[in-house]
């Protein structure tokens, strides 16, 4: 769509700008403020320069929680994206069951995040939980509060349970937008199921898959509540992800300087990825009208 150039449009954007500026720029400036200053209490602050940033970047704690977080995001992406595509491909295209499926699948997405943690906390307990009890009964030694491996498996299964539906719904919507003519053409050609998937469905899903991929990356990179409720970052520090570590430092220990420096580095990583996401997104957006015209 060709848009007219009109700077008066700023007036329409102004309320959003003011509101988001209030809740984004002022807090970020507070963080920047803390990150370059030191305090000995009594609201007296001293200029500290880049000291906190050097501290954070040299601390093992930061790199550990960052690498744990990256590993976690990597694992859940490897599981959730293919699983989501697979389930979306198997969904019925129309009929009375479609809304039922959609509502049931979307249900985990609307559960408050700490309740998700509580559900799995209960579910995994050997004494009162179905999963823990069953595993115990068949002789698997499973305890997510003391065993690092079990804690990780539980958190990953919980995240897959919680978020795979998002990928399914996105892919399902993407598949639903493929015109029937494509399938008819493939049928006339006698295309195999695999080539239908590889040459029709996958290219058409590219847009939604990029979104699913990045949304899942962002959200898993910011995960806080669910593992906090389930394991509290333990056993030891084995499930202390970036956000948990940050909150521990900022509110638990009140180390404002290092916490602020870490916040800014954390935010920077996400903004960088966000920028890549935005460029890729606008490129796929540019492809779409051409494809539509070719149909």
């Amino acid at each position, binding site marked *: 769509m060709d848009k007219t150039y009109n700077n008066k449009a700023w007036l329409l954007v102004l309320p959003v700008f003011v509101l988001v500026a209030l809740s984004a720029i002022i807090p970020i400036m507070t963080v920047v403020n803390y990150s370059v200053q030191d305090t000995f209490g009594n609201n007296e602050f001293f200029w500290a320069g880049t000291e906190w940033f050097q501290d954070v970047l040299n601390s093992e704690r930061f790199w550990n929680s960052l690498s744990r977080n990256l590993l976690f995001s990597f694992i859940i992406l490897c599981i959730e994206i293919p699983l989501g595509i697979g389930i979306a491909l198997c969904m*019925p295209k129309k009929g009375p069951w479609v809304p039922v499926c959609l509502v049931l699948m979307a249900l985990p997405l609307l559960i*408050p995040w700490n309740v998700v943690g509580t559900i799995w906390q209960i579910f995994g307990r050997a004494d009162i939980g179905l999963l823990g009890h069953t595993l115990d009964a068949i002789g698997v030694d499973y305890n997510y509060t003391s065993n690092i491996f079990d804690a990780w498996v539980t958190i990953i299964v919980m995240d897959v349970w919680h978020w795979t539906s998002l990928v399914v719904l996105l892919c399902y919507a993407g598949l639903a937008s493929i015109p029937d003519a494509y399938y008819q053409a493939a049928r006339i050609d006698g295309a195999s199921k695999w080539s239908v998937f590889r040459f029709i469905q996958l290219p058409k899903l590219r847009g939604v898959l990029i979104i699913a991929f990045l949304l899942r990356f962002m959200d898993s990179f910011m995960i806080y509540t669910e593992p906090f409720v389930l394991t509290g970052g333990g056993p030891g520090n084995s499930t202390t992800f*970036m956000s948990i570590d940050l909150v521990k430092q900022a*509110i638990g220990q009140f180390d404002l300087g290092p916490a602020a420096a870490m916040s800014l580095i954390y935010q920077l990583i996400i903004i960088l990825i*966000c920028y890549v996401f*935005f460029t890729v997104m606008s490129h796929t957006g540019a492809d779409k009208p051409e494809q539509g015209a070719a149909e």
Partner: protein
Amino acid sequence: MADTMLTPSTPKDASGNKIDITKVRTESSIKKQRSLKWLVPTIYIILLMLPIYWLTNMSFKTNQEILSSFTLWPANPTLANYRVIFSDPSWYSGYINSIIYVVLNTIISISVALPAAYAFSRYRFLGDKHMFFWLLSNRMAPAAVFVLPFFQLYSAFGLIDTHIAVALAHCLFNVPLAVWILEGFMSGVPKEIDETAYIDGYSFPKFFIKIFTPLIASGIGVAAFFCFMFSWVELLIARTLTTTDAKPIAAIMTRTVGASGVDWGVLAAAGVLTIIPGALVIYFVRNYIAKGFALGRV
């Protein structure tokens, strides 16, 4: 793209008869597969429902039964756990608090996002792309970064423990989201409609409310759904900004850990009750969800 799929394996002048045969063959094989295909979403949904079922199951049991025996369904279903929640104001006020700030947040987000989304979908202006990117980058901001500054900011204004504080704080990620979703829907409305309305003598506010808003009603529905959802599930910010009067239910749930251990039955009942509003909302917008996702705007 369609041409590349027309592989040379097709007979040059395929007679109608031949195509018919392949059609019949593939259709019957599709039918066969469909009966198996049903299993995958079914198994997936069953696995999704198991933990939720377990929570529901526990909520109808007494603590005695939960701890002493392992039963797949309540032997003596009891509503006692729910009665505890509905008879104690400190419990049920949590639900009211949550709903108040979620609704406030949804109204604020949608009403400021509507004009902005219109501007982004219809006009180019100084710094529009940067503005849009900056807005979206807020959707990606980790809540953990904002907890402490938010607390200080709202303390300075004396807004701690009010519903409006949480509603405003949640705007950080919901307003960009609403702008993004609405912009997608608005771009689907042809520009000629605006122009015709202006020629007919409509002023901008009148046109926007009388003609434009009804056209994107489903978009507003989808945007409201996502605002509701993300405000409802968020806890870290909501918990930090409230102490007693506006405390969300999700935070009150931690109260069940008492001196005598965890009151599992009440905890489960409270959990089940937090799922219900989400389930209701999703039921009402079920026909729009697929469309909202199809735009790829989440």
